[in-house]
């Protein structure tokens, strides 16, 4: 009797180890501590009902919402696999040897499961493949993104936008966080009280307040990229405080407030509804000119970065383009032109519009995949070095 008990327990604990290993494969971050917790928990359970068993393990082994919701399915899968593995292994054994003892059977079960969990090369290779997904994604052209990849990309973009938006200035402001003492203010405050230092003032670095103006081309030639670029705008809109967004094809439309308070799907629909020539032809020059005359005065200053997303295929007048770009350049801190076509090795800014705009662009970047976009956006904060050309 005693022996049986012990054997039962060891089987339970080895199964528990296997379950943890199985879950680890599914992405659960489990360590020996959790395994130990799970085993203690089981001994604490009032009745050995399976439903309790499962719920207890769920509380201990799941660590976030995704895992919490997936746990039941994984749990069932595990037991199915376990019983299947046992069956096949014991059958195999029983052909070779007729009388297999219980311990051997158990050993067989353990071994076969180990095989299945760890030493299956094809599965391991698959794992590696999924790990490198992110790597592939950073180099993939935005035009080829699938729906799932787009979602992953959004997450990366949001992080990127946040990082760029929250850069610290060298200026300091008073702070609730008690990290750095502001001596000057502390002394000044306490002088009123007779010089005894009674209250302390702390300071932290100020956030750099940059203003951003986004001008996004949504014409036919940009169709493949524009959906992605609207995603990009959306990510930025929600990370920056001071941002103004315009889309243009044949006419200019201000869309800041649409993007501001709505979730992405709704915002995208509203914009495509309101912008009549969505995916029509382009007259970049006149649109930029409109921007300068209507909004340039209020929105552009030496703290503003202008980001233009377009392929530069202009059907309008090159001179209009030139004068518009010139005034934007003069009034802003930096002009960045993201051109998805620039990723092509054969690219040269041949397009008439692009050519005339080029002298007034600080950075021309390709931004056809995440790696290039990242590089371009890192240049956002830098100061302009060259003098204004003629």
């Amino acid at each position, binding site marked *: 009797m005693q022996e049986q008990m012990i054997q039962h327990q060891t089987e339970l604990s080895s199964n528990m180890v296997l379950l943890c290993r199985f879950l680890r494969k599914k992405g659960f971050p489990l360590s020996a501590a959790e395994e130990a917790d799970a085993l203690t928990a089981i001994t604490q359970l009032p009745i050995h009902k399976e439903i309790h068993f499962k719920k*207890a393990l769920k509380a201990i082994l799941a660590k*976030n919402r995704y895992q919490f919701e997936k746990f039941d399915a994984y749990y069932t899968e595990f037991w199915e696999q376990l019983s299947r593995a046992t069956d096949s292994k014991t059958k195999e054994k029983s052909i070779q040897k007729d009388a297999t003892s219980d311990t051997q059977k158990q050993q067989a079960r353990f071994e076969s499961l180990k095989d299945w969990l760890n030493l299956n090369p094809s599965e391991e290779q698959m794992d590696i493949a999924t790990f490198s997904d992110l790597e592939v994604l950073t180099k993939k052209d935005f035009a080829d993104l699938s729906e799932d990849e787009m979602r992953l990309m959004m997450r990366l973009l949001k992080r990127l936008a946040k990082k760029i938006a929250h850069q610290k200035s060298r200026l300091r402001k008073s702070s609730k966080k008690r990290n750095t003492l502001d001596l000057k203010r502390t002394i000044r405050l306490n002088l009123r009280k007779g010089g*005894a230092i009674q209250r302390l003032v702390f300071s932290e670095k100020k956030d750099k307040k940059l203003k951003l103006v986004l001008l996004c081309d949504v014409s036919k030639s940009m169709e493949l990229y524009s959906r992605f670029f609207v995603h990009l705008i959306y990510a930025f809109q929600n990370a920056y405080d001071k941002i103004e967004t315009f889309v243009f094809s044949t006419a200019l439309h201000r869309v800041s407030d649409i993007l501001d308070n709505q979730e992405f799907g709704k915002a995208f629909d509203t914009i495509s509804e309101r912008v009549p020539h969505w995916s029509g032809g382009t007259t970049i020059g006149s649109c930029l000119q409109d921007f300068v005359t209507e909004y340039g005065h209020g929105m552009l200053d030496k703290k503003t970065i202008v980001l233009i997303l377009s392929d530069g295929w202009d059907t309008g007048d090159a001179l209009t383009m030139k004068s518009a770009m010139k005034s934007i350049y003069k009034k802003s801190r930096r002009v960045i032109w993201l051109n998805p076509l620039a990723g092509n090795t054969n690219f040269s800014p041949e397009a008439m519009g692009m050519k005339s705009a080029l002298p007034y662009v600080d950075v021309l970047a390709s931004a056809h995949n995440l790696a290039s976009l990242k590089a371009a956006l890192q240049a956002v904060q830098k100061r302009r070095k060259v003098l204004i050309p003629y």
Partner: protein
Amino acid sequence: MKSQELSQIRNMLQEQGYISDGSIAMSIFLAMRLEKPLLIEGPAGVGKTEIAKVMAKALKTDLIRLQCYEGLDSTHALYEWNYQHQLLYLKMQEEKGKDVKALEETIFSDKFLLKRPVLQAITHTKKPVLLIDEIDRADEEFESFLLEVLSDWQVTIPEIGTIKATHKPQIILTGNRTRELSEALRRRCLYLWIDYPDFEKELAIVKAKVPEADAKLGQQICAFMKELRELKLEKTPGISETIDWARALASMHLTHLDKQIVEETLGVVLKDWQDIRHTQDALSELLEKTGVVSRIG
């Protein structure tokens, strides 16, 4: 308290008016048994904070609450030296010409230590329930501060040394997922996800919390809320809104819903202008699905 069984926990929650399901009771049971912190996540207004309150009441112990916010740091959560007090004390002692070393020892003693919630919890005379509410609002650095308390039940104060817990407090952490919490924090906790309740559970909650509400009214309210949550709203209403609404309607002695009443009291349930407008547009359809057929239109 020591030999609490699973069913007892369930009864205990029920007695306090908290309607739970299997996984909630199990998580609380294990958190108490294994003496581990319990991390509860879920949408707003599904009764996360309530669990801690109910637990404190049921265990007949104190609830110590730490509300997290952006910029919360150790001085507000763990401890702080009472700086002004120390200064005054030094001034008073100046004339007496006391030994400097002895002075130093006194000013860094318990007397001048301001205990903030976490320190309070671990030095409490009785095992308390420590509620760390909306942990995801605090900064990431603050999470790291908590790790020492959560796994080793101690706080280190450089001037004094390490203070060990007299009784391990029962820690409940809640979060709304406004920010992803760190793996390190998650690892140290048991996890519970509470979602919006199904119809039966919500009805049971309404019955328990608003006993004066008419039975038919309660059913209609819960059915309506269930449909309402299916709409894509900016802010989906939680259970607390359901209870508020049931209370409001019951206080008007209504026995059933109709379109006009719903329209007039929508502000109890929805707190966003766009949501209200959106719902008003879909109201007839909603009421039809709920089984409340409107008379006109």
